[in-house]
């Protein structure tokens, strides 16, 4: 036997319309992604080991400096790169001699703005000799 409460909520064509409305696209309420161009340039200093003397195939390089960037103005930047300089990871630019070689490196960094806001980022790429080859020891 149907209860009066259920009977009062029997679906009508207008109820169905209301249900459909609730699952319709959110329109202006939908989350939107706004992308803005960003650039920053600056300089700094290594703050620790520059990998000299590393013999186990792995080393970590830290750096710190200041940058001037769009949307942020002057800011500080700190970062760390872990370098894999093992025999199997290196990339020879002049194979087979392999006097010029690149190494995979990855790490993280933080840009700290003057208002103490931060932008954190990951970095992944190659460390390669610039104008001269790495010294071979």
């Amino acid at each position: 036997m149907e209860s009066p409460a259920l009977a009062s909520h029997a679906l009508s064509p207008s109820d169905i319309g209301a249900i459909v409305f609730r699952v319709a696209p959110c329109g202006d309420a939908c989350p939107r992604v706004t992308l803005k161009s960003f650039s920053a340039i600056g300089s700094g200093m290594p703050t620790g080991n520059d990998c000299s003397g590393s013999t186990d195939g792995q080393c970590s390089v830290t750096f710190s400096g200041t940058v001037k960037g769009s949307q942020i103005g002057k800011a500080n930047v700190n970062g760390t790169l872990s370098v894999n300089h093992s025999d199997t990871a290196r990339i020879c630019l002049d194979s087979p001699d392999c006097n010029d070689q690149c190494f995979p490196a990855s790490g993280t960094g933080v840009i700290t703005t003057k208002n103490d806001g931060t932008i954190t980022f990951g970095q992944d790429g190659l460390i390669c000799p610039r104008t001269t080859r790495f010294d071979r020891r």
Partner: protein
Amino acid sequence: MASFAPVPPDSTGGENFNGSFLVTGGTKKFAGEIGSGLTGAAISADGSVVTFTLTGTIGKP
């Protein structure tokens, strides 16, 4: 077969880091930033000076 540990990079002679940067988060004004990426970035070391160049986009959901 010759076996030696490849010389690790150091500041002697200078080297470049070329790769991609990916924004992973932030705080305050940039708390909503997402990993839309900073690409074409480079860090180069020449002697004791490190230069930073970051270009790309940042996004906010």
